[in-house]
């Protein structure tokens, strides 16, 4: 098959598959070959699921030939972050050496739903060990090695969904599933020049996904465009009795934006403080673009310790979720030296302080909603910096070495956000723009991101050597 399917958005692949101008089997073969050939270059892949993929692709091809087309993901290859359980002897490693041979006997709900949509699972993708919950400080924090950025192979692809980011950016899969507790979808999307969607907490079932923090974890797509993210969310969203945090709010992706829609955007005061020059400059240029189809106004949140609220919840829940691993000393088997001991410090979190963080989270959620209510989205740089270099320390709001009010509020309050590329900064690395909306407003933030991508071409640029 010609390589013209690589770096082609799901929307366009789907049109060709539906019209039977593109064979799902040939499509799967193309991406399986790229995963096997190029995956190691980026440390992007844990397991190539060739047999399962070809079975699914053959089934898709037969169904479509018989007139049973399931929808836009039918016959489309994808990769899943390796914290989603998969049956059939496919390991689910959580990126951590102590679990590198562990297998489950069931599929996570997100995988089941993608199966039902006809998508073709081609790979389990690399990730920072335990989704970064043990306090890692540098990219080499997975038994598969550091995630390598396709835009600059001396730079990091981001964490913790590092393989999901590099695999889509390198054209190894058309889309991938990642997870975000605080930054783990938006960070690799931004670092790798992709669209990444963090859904509202409770929108997508986490059943079968590794638990890092029960009240913060979300699953969402990384893809070439915001539109593709909507197509994927449509397939994976919805109530699941196996995950009681999911809600009875049926989701249907709405890809139609009324012509001439005028969006109303807000920018938090001081949001670019501490950002790299190129990030700030690209963001200011993005605001000019947004003014072409909307208004932009400065807004403010009350002075609350947002980062401390979300950080305290994250640390306490992660320490509990991995209590066995920590108490037993098995964290000594993790890859990053700092992951082998940092979590011990979390015994210093008092129950009263964790509960205070949960009480303040309610205040934070109400204040964020008050600010967002008259707006379509808050906009901000996706990240304050371009990707870190592989040998360097990563600045992180989770560890308190950087500030990330958008991430702290967005994750702490469970709000949806989508990041899209908006330029390049130092060392040829991408920068990004994020749109964050009110709870359950994925369609609004996706519409805004689509409008931005309709008048920019950053998402059409791809790494030269991929």
């Amino acid at each position, binding site marked *: 098959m010609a390589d013209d399917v690589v770096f082609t958005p799901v929307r366009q692949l789907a049109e060709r598959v539906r019209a039977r101008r593109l064979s799902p089997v040939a499509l799967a073969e193309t991406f399986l070959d790229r995963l096997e050939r190029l995956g190691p270059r980026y440390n992007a892949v844990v397991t190539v699921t060739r047999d399962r993929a070809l079975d699914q692709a053959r089934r898709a091809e037969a169904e479509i030939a018989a007139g049973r087309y399931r929808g836009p993901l039918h016959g489309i290859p994808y990769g899943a972050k390796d914290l989603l359980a998969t049956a059939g002897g496919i390991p689910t490693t959580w990126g951590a050496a102590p679990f590198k041979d562990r297998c489950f006997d069931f599929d996570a709900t997100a995988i089941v739903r993608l199966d039902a949509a006809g998508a073709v699972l081609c790979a389990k993708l690399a990730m920072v060990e335990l989704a970064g919950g043990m*306090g890692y400080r540098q990219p080499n924090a997975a038994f598969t090695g550091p995630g390598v950025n396709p835009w600059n192979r001396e730079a990091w692809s981001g964490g913790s969904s590092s393989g999901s980011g590099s695999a889509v950016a390198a054209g190894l899969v058309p889309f991938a599933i990642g997870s975000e507790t605080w930054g783990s979808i938006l960070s690799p999307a931004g670092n790798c020049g992709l669209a990444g969607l963090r859904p509202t907490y409770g929108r997508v079932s986490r059943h079968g996904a590794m638990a890092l923090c029960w*009240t913060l974890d979300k699953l969402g797509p990384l893809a070439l465009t915001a539109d593709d993210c909507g197509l994927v969310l449509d397939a994976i969203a919805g109530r699941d009795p196996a995950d*009681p*945090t999911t809600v009875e709010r049926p989701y249907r992706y709405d890809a139609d934006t009324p012509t001439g829609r005028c969006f109303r955007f807000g920018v938090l005061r001081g949001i670019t403080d501490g950002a790299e020059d190129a990030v700030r400059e690209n963001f200011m240029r993005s605001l000019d673009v947004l003014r072409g189809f909307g208004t932009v106004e400065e807004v403010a949140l009350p002075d*609350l*310790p947002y*980062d*401390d*609220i979300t*950080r*305290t919840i994250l*640390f306490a829940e992660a320490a509990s979720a991995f209590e066995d691993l920590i108490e037993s*000393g098995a964290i*000594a088997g993790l890859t990053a030296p*700092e992951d*082998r*001991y*940092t979590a*011990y*410090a*979390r*015994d*210093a*979190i*008092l129950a009263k*302080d964790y*509960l*205070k*963080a*949960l*009480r*303040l*989270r*309610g*205040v934070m*959620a109400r204040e964020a909603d008050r600010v967002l209510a008259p707006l379509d989205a808050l906009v901000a740089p996706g990240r304050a910096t371009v990707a870190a270099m592989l040998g360097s320390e990563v600045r992180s709001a989770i*560890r*308190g070495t950087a500030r990330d009010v958008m991430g702290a509020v967005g994750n702490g309050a469970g709000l949806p956000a989508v990041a899209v590329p908006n330029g390049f900064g130092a060392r040829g690395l991408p920068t990004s723009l994020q749109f964050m909306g009110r709870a359950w407003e994925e369609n609004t933030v996706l519409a805004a991101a689509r409008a931005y991508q309709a008048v920019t071409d950053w998402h059409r640029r791809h790494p030269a050597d991929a």
Partner: protein
Amino acid sequence: MSEAEDVRAEVEAMLALVRARYGSRLDAEQLAGVRTAVEGIVQAARALRAVRLTNADEPAQPFAAYRSEP
């Protein structure tokens, strides 16, 4: 006691707890890393405690009484 001395005392108390539980597993370099992490936790906790809430401000966390069917 000054604010800085307060913080230091709290860090030392918490660090003593961590050391009592896990000290045998930690070398000097790791213990220094744990100290830095404890300092961050204590600073965050003090920032949370500095915000006043009312009795009506409940944790933002769902809990539902459970009963299996029927």
